[in-house]
């Protein structure tokens, strides 16, 4: 049986001593519980005695107690147990909040503190300490979680839980689609441990955890090799990168194996030995003047001269993938050389040799090259009724005048040494008139009137043909339409019906195209003529032919689209017209127009490039795609003068007289009085500025 007494005293010590005396035992044999501590009142008014409860226990108890602390056996055991759990992920600390009697009461009254992961508190009569919970900490008070803060009393049971975290090393190996490189992506793992910080006694404490992060990269060299083996990578290991990946402590990607990429070869090519580009434009002399006689230098070749060398394709060198498969290089192709007039291909030497004298002409489109020699026709004298019109596939020089109603047409350059009177001069490239053009039509560039009309028609034809192909496709899917005649006649009967009824417009467009190509056959490229032939066979043949299948119709339509595209690119920018004086003339150039003499009167100029008028522009209209430079525009009488450029073009005039109208893009301006040094363009807000 246990014997228990309550003992009172002036203070705790005295109460315990009195009690022990009464029981006649030593401190070791008693369980001591402090019921009430003594309080010092004012003049004994509020003072209370200390009360302790003493229980006599068996002498052989393993239980030892400190002088004035009563500790429950169970609690101690729990603490001991918890110490054994210290390395577990969640550290559990629990104890009854008890006063630490080693500290003087006066200092600790109303305070709380943390020591070695445990909460101690010493509430006072008038103040209970408070605890706030910081990040990463879970505080349980009597098994209830505390969200923000709480009050600590001696009876409370606190549990602190900290969140530990750990991540494994993540890695993977990828190979690119060409099997040229193998990449290792690694994110090293880590272990995060938290420990509650010790906190000095205070009225209010914030529980804080101290985090330690340890990076663990447990990727091993042989694991990588095994993964590579699984991918069948046997070639091009990069050992230093693998080592770097094994030792890295930051996430990253390493190229751990790489193959050899193939070395590309070269396609066949042509090397021109002679100059083919004209050097055009006037050369300025040292004294600032120019010589009109040296307007351009035209390259020429003699018979037997080597014009170009053809280089055969150089095959590439194959590469290897990381799995040791060969990667073939891109196929190389030879250059296809089309020998035009006056050129022979010397196969044994891979050289192009001129067989005639003339101007070399070179054109290349992808792997197709065309070289020809353009002959020069020199007409010594006037072009008039007795000489007849002159049409020539090469260059033409006319040493005299071109007279009333006559025509000079050339695929190459045209040069007129004297004047052109009420006549027409056209060239696919350049026109130079050393004299005057009066009442004449001068045109330069492939985009002649025929070609532009043909393209216009071709656009319609292509559009309609697309629709027709769709219709045919639709019809072929209908169950009631039999294909019994397909073998014998192909699509011919169907095309006939469609052209006759639904696609009448297509029929008329194709007819127009064909007749136009016949009319302009001497001016048009053979491509146009061939196309006209194909369209005719497809739509107007009475017997079945190769164009009457669905696939060939699609191919033809594609062909048309290509032709239209090609034309749009072919801007004739290198063409030019030079003349010294123009009166009542129409001038059309794919590129620049330069009037170097007195000026231009009552004429219409259309240029794809720049228009330069060194003299006076009086009466008429100028359109230029790139810009206009004029020394003097308009007259005192106020003749209508119109100058038009696109919105990005500029108009420069030294002197603009009354009546000059300029238009840039859609913005127009009319000069009411004389203005000097005008440099007109549009600003960012599409407003005209001078």
């Amino acid at each position, binding site marked *: 049986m246990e014997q228990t007494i309550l003992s009172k005293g002036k203070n705790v010590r005295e109460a315990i001593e009195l009690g022990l005396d009464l029981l006649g035992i030593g401190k070791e044999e008693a369980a001591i519980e402090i019921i009430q501590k003594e309080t010092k009142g004012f003049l004994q008014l509020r003072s209370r005695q200390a009360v302790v409860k003493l229980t006599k226990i068996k002498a052989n108890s393993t239980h030892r107690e400190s002088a004035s602390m009563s500790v429950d056996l169970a609690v101690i055991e729990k603490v001991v147990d918890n110490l054994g759990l210290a390395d577990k992920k969640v550290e559990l600390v629990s104890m009854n909040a008890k006063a630490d009697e080693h500290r003087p009461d006066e200092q600790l009254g109303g305070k709380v503190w943390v020591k070695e992961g445990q909460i101690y508190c010493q509430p006072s009569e008038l103040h209970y300490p408070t605890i706030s919970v910081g990040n990463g900490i879970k505080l349980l008070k009597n098994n209830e979680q505390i969200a923000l803060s709480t009050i600590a009393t001696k009876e409370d049971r606190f549990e602190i839980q900290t969140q530990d975290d750990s991540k494994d090393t993540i890695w993977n190996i990828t190979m690119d689609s060409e099997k040229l490189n193998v990449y290792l992506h690694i994110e090293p793992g880590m272990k995060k441990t938290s420990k509650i910080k010790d906190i000095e006694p205070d009225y209010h404490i914030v529980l804080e955890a101290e985090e330690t992060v340890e990076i663990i990269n447990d990727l091993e060299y042989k694991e990588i090799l095994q993964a590579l083996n699984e991918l069948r990578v046997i070639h091009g290991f990069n050992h230093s990168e693998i080592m770097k990946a094994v030792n890295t402590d930051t996430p990253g990607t390493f190229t751990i194996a790489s193959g050899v990429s193939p070395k590309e070869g070269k396609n066949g090519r042509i090397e021109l030995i002679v100059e083919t580009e004209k050097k055009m434009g006037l050369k300025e002399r040292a004294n600032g003047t120019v010589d009109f006689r040296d307007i351009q230098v035209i390259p020429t070749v003699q018979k037997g001269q080597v014009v170009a060398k053809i280089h055969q394709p150089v095959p590439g060198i194959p590469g290897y993938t990381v799995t040791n498969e060969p990667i073939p290089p891109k196929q190389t192709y030879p250059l296809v050389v089309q020998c035009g007039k006056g050129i022979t291909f010397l196969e044994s030497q891979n050289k192009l040799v001129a067989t005639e004298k003339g101007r070399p002409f070179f054109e290349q489109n992808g792997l197709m090259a065309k070289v020809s020699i353009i002959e020069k026709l020199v007409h010594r004298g006037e072009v008039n009724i007795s000489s007849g019109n002159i049409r020539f596939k090469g260059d033409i020089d006319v040493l005299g005048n071109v007279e009333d109603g006559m025509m000079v047409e050339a695929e190459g350059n045209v040069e007129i040494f004297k004047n052109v009177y009420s006549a027409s001069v056209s060239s696919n490239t350049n026109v130079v008139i050393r004299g005057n053009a009066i009442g004449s039509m001068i045109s330069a560039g492939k985009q002649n009137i025929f070609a532009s009309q043909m393209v216009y028609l071709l656009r319609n034809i292509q559009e309609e043909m697309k629709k027709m192909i769709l*219709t045919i496709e*639709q*019809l072929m899917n*209908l*169950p*009631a*339409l*039999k*294909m*019994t*005649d*397909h073998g*014998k*006649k192909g*699509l011919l*009967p*169907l095309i*006939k*019906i*469609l052209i*006759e*009824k*639904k696609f009448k417009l297509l029929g008329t467009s194709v007819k127009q195209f064909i007749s136009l190509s016949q009319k302009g056959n001497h001016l048009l490229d053979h491509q146009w003529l061939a196309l006209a032939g194909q369209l005719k066979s497809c739509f107007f043949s009475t017997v079945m032919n190769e164009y009457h299948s669905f696939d060939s119709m699609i191919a033809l339509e594609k062909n048309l689209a290509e032709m239209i595209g090609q034309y749009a690119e072919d801007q004739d920018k290198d063409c030019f017209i030079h003349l010294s004086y123009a009166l009542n003339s129409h001038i059309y150039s794919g590129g620049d127009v330069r009037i170097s003499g007195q000026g231009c009167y009552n004429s219409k100029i259309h240029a794809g490039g720049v228009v330069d008028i060194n003299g006076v522009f009086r009466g008429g209209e100028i359109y230029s795609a790139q810009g206009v430079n004029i020394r003097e525009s308009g007259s005192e009488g106020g003749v209508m003068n119109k100058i038009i450029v696109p919105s990005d073009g500029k108009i420069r005039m030294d002197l603009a007289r009354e009546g000059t109208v300029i238009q840039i893009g859609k913005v127009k301006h009319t000069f009411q009085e004389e203005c000097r040094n005008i440099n007109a363009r549009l600003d960012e807000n599409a407003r005209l500025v001078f």
Partner: protein
Amino acid sequence: MFTYKLDKIDQSVSVQFNGDFDIEVSELIEDEIIPALMNFACVELDFDGVPFVDSTGIGLLLNLIDSLKNNQEDVQIKIKKIQPMVREVFEILQLDEILREKVYLSLN
């Protein structure tokens, strides 16, 4: 097998076609039917028995109509009872001229 039946009443004639209207019937149409239909004021073509056509067949039909009109300008031609599937072909080909309202009327 393609067959046809002619019904003559005074100045009008009606033809019933039976079978596929295709390349096989070219000779029959050109050599027999067109001559037989000449010189009538009113011609009725009955397509009730025609389940399939091909493009040559349609060409033949157009040719037939043209021939009759060339021969006699004021001839009245009616096409009736076109099977819906066959009519679809006619519509896609936009052969509206030979599919006048009469065709629709006779269909209803």
